[in-house]
């Protein structure tokens, strides 16, 4: 095996992925046909994307990739997916007042979609401004990115199965891939089927609420659109007021599905296999539920005692039990695992409650979930390692492995987690500084906490930040340099830094 990456094979693999991913544009094309708008946009986008994918694929007839190439394939595939995904925005926006006509905004929107971030670069979300087809594509990119485009490709493309484990490993959120079946293809299929099942369940629940009249504004289009962005912890909504546009019963209906989205999907597979103990005895799962409950309770109490001023969206929470509880639970269920839906404009809340949200954003979902962030399991292992180090400092002769749920955690895994977390914090902090300086440069200076939140919201694939970048705000006014940085942050945040860095290190090695 060569030490450097094989560019032809890597690009060829990436091409295959892009080609098949483009087929998913059939969905917005259908929507376009139904509503009679933007049919040409998607027909053209699909043609361009398939042509691009096929062209790249032709670079190598029999691509053969090693571990290093696999990292490059994953990183490149995600980047190319965002590029291809941006095409419809540019075409549809051409000649209109849409901000998405600008390639940087389009790429931002597309990367934000695939990485399930949910930050938007357009100021106005409405059916007047964007066709239903374009907005459905925006939702669909999240759904495709949620469980992972590589996992999807491994599940459906036999030629990827050979290197499937390597590819999925680089994409899987959390420290390491959980292989459920001897054959990686079956693992990929199982994960996608569970994901699909939950999505269908949510769409069914939402449709039912709409049909029964409990939530008249929830039509089939909205049900599908929100189904596409809940399970992947996305956060895009075709409604300008996000989930705040719907009645409280709908808001409650979202909560369990958002919580599920932050759970390791492999655990549901064990439940299906009649082994629910595997799930309920899982340390990370219990910790995750505990954190969600704890944060939600604190936030609800904070809101009850006036943490949020009376705002138009979300309503008054001070002294109103149900609303304070609902806003608290919803915002934590949405922000901790990086979904990014909102039912209230928390950008207008008190600093204390905002800090609580910021802290929750730092935690992230579980490993193997669709959520972003550092992940619960990493925090758990970090804290246990910290405790171990303190203990061994006092007792230098004692040998003490770090255990998680009775299992010994390998020292290499611990080192990997330390490196990852350090890199994450470093990139996050440096980016916040850059965002602060760059926005000040164009006279749109953010406050300190807003810059930190902006950096965290993009690297953590969360979406909404604070201040003007809040849940009902937009990233549109930011300078293009900052947007490009954020595109990068979303990209490395979704792939958990290392595969992307490895791509650059590999290209440096070649010289």
């Amino acid at each position, binding site marked *: 095996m060569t030490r450097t990456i094989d560019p032809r094979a890597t690009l060829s693999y990436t091409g295959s992925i892009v080609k098949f991913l483009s087929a998913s544009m059939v969905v917005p094309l259908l929507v376009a046909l139904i509503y009679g708008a933007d049919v040409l946009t998607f027909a053209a986008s699909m043609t361009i994307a398939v042509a691009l994918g096929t062209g790249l694929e032709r670079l190598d007839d029999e691509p053969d990739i090693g571990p290093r190439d696999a990292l490059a394939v994953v990183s490149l595939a995600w980047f190319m997916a965002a590029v291809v995904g941006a095409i419809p925005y540019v075409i549809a926006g051409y000649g209109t007042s849409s901000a998405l006509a600008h390639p940087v905004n389009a790429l931002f929107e597309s990367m934000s979609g695939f990485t399930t971030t949910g930050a938007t670069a357009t100021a106005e979300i409405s059916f007047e401004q964007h066709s239903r087809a374009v907005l459905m594509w925006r939702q669909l990119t999240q759904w495709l990115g949620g469980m992972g485009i590589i996992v999807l490709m491994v599940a459906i493309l036999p030629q990827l199965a050979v290197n499937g484990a390597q590819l999925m490993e680089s994409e899987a959120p959390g420290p390491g891939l959980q292989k459920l079946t001897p054959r990686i293809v079956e693992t990929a299929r199982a994960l996608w089927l569970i994901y699909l099942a939950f999505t269908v369940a949510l769409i069914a629940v939402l449709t039912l609420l709409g049909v029964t009249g409990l939530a008249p504004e929830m039509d089939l289009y909205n049900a599908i659109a929100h189904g596409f962005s809940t399970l992947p912890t996305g956060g895009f909504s075709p409604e300008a007021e996000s989930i705040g546009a719907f009645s409280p019963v709908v808001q409650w209906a979202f909560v369990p599905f958002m919580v599920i989205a932050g759970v390791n999907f492999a655990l549901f597979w064990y439940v299906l296999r009649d082994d629910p103990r595997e799930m309920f005895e899982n340390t990370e799962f219990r910790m995750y539920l505990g954190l969600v409950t704890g944060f939600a309770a604190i936030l609800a109490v904070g809101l009850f005692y006036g943490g949020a001023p009376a705002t138009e969206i979300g309503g008054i929470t001070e002294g109103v039990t149900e609303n304070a509880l609902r806003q608290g639970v919803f915002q934590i269920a949405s922000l901790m695992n990086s979904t990014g839906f909102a039912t209230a404009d928390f950008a207008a809340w008190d600093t204390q409650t905002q800090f609580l949200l910021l802290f929750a954003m730092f935690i992230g979902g579980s490993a193997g979930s669709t959520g972003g962030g550092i992940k619960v399991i990493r925090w758990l292992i970090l804290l246990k390692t910290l405790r171990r180090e303190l203990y061994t400092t006092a*007792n230098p*002769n*004692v*040998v*003490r*492995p770090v*255990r998680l749920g*009775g299992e*010994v955690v390998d020292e290499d895994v611990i080192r990997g987690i330390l490196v990852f977390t350090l890199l994450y914090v470093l990139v996050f902090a440096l980016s916040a500084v850059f965002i602060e300086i760059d926005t000040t440069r164009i006279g749109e200076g953010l406050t300190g906490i807003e810059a930190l939140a902006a950096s965290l919201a993009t690297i953590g694939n969360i979406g909404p930040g604070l201040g003007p970048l809040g849940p009902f705000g937009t990233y549109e006014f930011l300078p293009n340099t900052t947007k490009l940085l954020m595109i990068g942050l979303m990209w490395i945040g979704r792939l958990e830094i290392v595969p992307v860095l490895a791509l650059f290190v590999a290209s440096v090695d070649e010289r």
Partner: protein
Amino acid sequence: MYVVVIGAGEVGTSIAASLASDHEVVVVDVDPDRAEQLKYELDVLTIAGDGTTSDIQSAAEVGRADMIIACTDDDQTNLVACGAAKTLGDGFTIARVKSTEFLRTWQGSEGAFGVDFMVCTDLLTAENIVRVIGLPAAVDVDPFAGGLVQMAEFEIGEGSPVAGQTVSEADRFESLTFVGLFRDGEMTIPRGDTDIVVGDRAVVVGSPESVQSFATDVAPATTPDHADEIVVVGGSEIGYQTARLLEERDFTPRLIERDADRARWLAENLPNSVVMEHDATDTEFLSREHVDEADIVVTALGSDEKNLLISVLAKRLGVDRVIAVVDSPDYVTVFEEIGIDIAINPRTVTAEEITRFTYESVAENIAVLENDQAEVLELELTEGCGLTGRPISEIVAESDVRFVIGAITRNHQLVTPRGDTVLRAGDHVILLVESDSVGQIASMA
């Protein structure tokens, strides 16, 4: 019986010596000098050669042997010897092994490797050590069903909290059964309302953990409690197994091991022990870590010299009880004369276990109590025998034999007997029976 012993090391020689008087014994050893020497020392036939080959086994007439005991120092040799013996005849095969992995495989599928009974030296030694540590108050302790069940006899001393209680008050452990009570040398079968008085001897059968807990009730002063400091020096297989068994009994031992990789392995496999990586012969380290304040120190290092050194050191530092593993049987008395509380020799322990097994008996395993008044037996139930198919209470009511079922093991799992428990074929039953009725009860199994 016609017995073939393969391997004439210390274990083989010791077994051969104790069997030679009553049985026909043939000893096979690979070393011709050793074989020659043994011919004059013991009244046995010796054959020099590789005991795993069918040539040598045929020469030893393994085909007509009642029992084949493979007890060389090498695990694989012993297993192959047993496997080969099974091809020649149908003798009962006993293999001595060091590796607990082989034992686990064998326990998972009895008869594996062609072995009918397996004795794991290191585990057996560790079990002995833990028994000595945990049950100093017991008059007699015997393991049954491969260590899953323990029988223990306790004397109820002056000031014991159990004295004055009824049996049902004292027996508050899920998997423990009172099987017998001796008062003034007379045995009674205990009932729930039987009073326990000072001077009684109580015989209990149950899981080792419950016996340990009961010991704490009977003799809180002498039985170590969970706060007691136990230090195991040396992370050998014996040291590891000792710590593991102590963990099972809710102790938190400290284990000292010099090798970094081994220490890491031990720490990974012993979640409730504190593993320290250091050279245990460093006295400064021992006092820094307050090993002198330990209640019990077990030395299980690789060499007798080191064990002696640590033992003496620990005694001088003021440790209450020091238990030493001694590799060479000759040194056992030396250790004990120096003042080491207990010296345990793995080979002696193994030889005793195998010899115990060769006693001709209806039962798989027996313990004789109180001048042969009663016996605790382990019986394997066969298809359609008189004990299966009905609740225990019915069988006891109809039978004129006085016996108490103390424990049942089914597929290597302990089942606590209750009145409505129905026994099945294949169960191992540990029961107490009056010595006169042993034959009757055995015919029912």
